[in-house]
């Protein structure tokens, strides 16, 4: 799906188009990075949230920023709703994101509808469908030099 690498996509989770997984834990939607996202970013160095617990956020509103060994990116809300809280452990030490991304490396919890999310099958299809495009984008970025 990602060239010669296989991304692990657990079947019991839901996925957003911007590469977060979602699991309902004690009535809250818990989100983390899919292994696809982690594979692209590699080791997380720095994670920063720009919203606070209790804030209402729109779909794809910017909520934070990440810097990893290979990439930087702003981060955007996977659903519309209220932010309930962040995983304090990965804020203190983001390595759990790389070590145990689908469990201890969770990122934040939100209230709000998750009907828009995909199941594992659909996400797998989404990845396969977009891999060509993603590759083109990545190569473009690398070749673009200072932009």
């Amino acid at each position, binding site marked *: 799906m990602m060239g010669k690498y296989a991304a692990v996509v657990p079947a019991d989770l839901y996925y*957003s*188009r*911007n*590469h977060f997984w979602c699991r309902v834990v004690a009535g809250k939607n818990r989100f983390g990075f899919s292994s696809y*996202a982690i594979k*692209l*970013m590699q080791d997380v*160095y*720095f994670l*920063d949230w*720009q919203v606070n617990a209790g804030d209402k956020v729109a779909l*794809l509103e*910017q909520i934070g*920023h990440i*810097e*990893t*060994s*290979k*990439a*930087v*990116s*702003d*981060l*955007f809300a*996977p659903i519309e709703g209220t932010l309930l809280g962040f995983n304090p452990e990965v804020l203190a030490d983001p390595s759990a994101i790389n070590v145990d991304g689908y469990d201890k490396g969770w990122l934040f919890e939100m209230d709000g509808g998750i009907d828009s999310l995909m199941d594992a099958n659909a996400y797998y299809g989404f990845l396969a469908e977009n891999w060509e495009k*993603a590759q083109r*984008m*990545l190569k473009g*970025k*690398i070749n673009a*030099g*200072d*932009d």
Partner: protein
Amino acid sequence: MSQKKLTVVLSQAQGKDPVRRAIEEEIAAALLMEPGIDLGIVPALYDLNEGHTGRLYLEGVQGDMVVISWLYPRAAYWLLDRDGIQGKMGETNIKPADNNDDDDDEGEEASKPKGIGAVKFQDRFIYCLDLRDAKDHRTYIEEVRRIFSECKQRWGAATGDSKPAIVQLGMNISTPASTNGNATGSTAFPKEEMLKIPGRRWYPVIDYSRCTNCMECLDFCLFGVYGVDSLERIYVDNQDSCKKGCPACSRVCPEQAIMFPDYKSPAIAGAPVGAISGLKIDLTKLFGGGDALVIAAKERDKELLRDGRDAVGLTVGIPKRQSDKKDSPKDELDNLMDSLDTLEI
């Protein structure tokens, strides 16, 4: 005259973070004991308004200066430049902790920015150190020592030949800063006045080493923040007309020349441009980020509405870009179009 002192200005963190205050105090205590160093302590650099004693003190510093703050060096340097506290950018050896990327750290420097540069008035060096780069205060003390010896070498060289010329020109560059006495203790700048906490401010800072004077920020901002100086260079005219929290013009800038030193994402706060976008891939699009212009227009609309004005969306001051187009050599048609542009037809 070569017995000049080096001025070190420590800019405190905003707020009362005990961890930050502790490292500031360790550095201050060590520098007070350091021979040849004049230490001045001011509140957060970014917040110093015109007339603040801390700022007057900074304006009065003569000769080379080290500024230690909680800002990215690039942000601190250009912030001072805007306030008329100018000099050449001194190179520091302190680099961000996680900047040990593979092999090509230096290579990126090759892509030199094509900005219009600063208008320099003072022949001296300003070194900006970022307090977030190292946890141990000794790192900063050692760096100050290294810079001091670098400065002394330069001063030594200068007194050798060029000094008489300077005197003839009537510029008192070689007046030692130390005649002002110990900065923090001097009567001109009473300590309590210097350390008076100013109100929080919010305004853009232009990095003229990147700015190409394209004026897109001037067109985009509808709050009258930007202006043009007597040399027809863009500059931040009305700093305090800026809308707190809004970084929209920074996103519009095609050269990443506009910084908001207090903004949360490093790219906007003034992180080294090479490290952020040169060495690393920006995955923002992949993670659901929209076009920077769309985000900027939304941020601007929010502030317009808050002011009781109408939102303008993407209709005003949005530069037309062909961002996906490769930079190909111009052909004859392009040249023809360019010449039409200059004729203003």
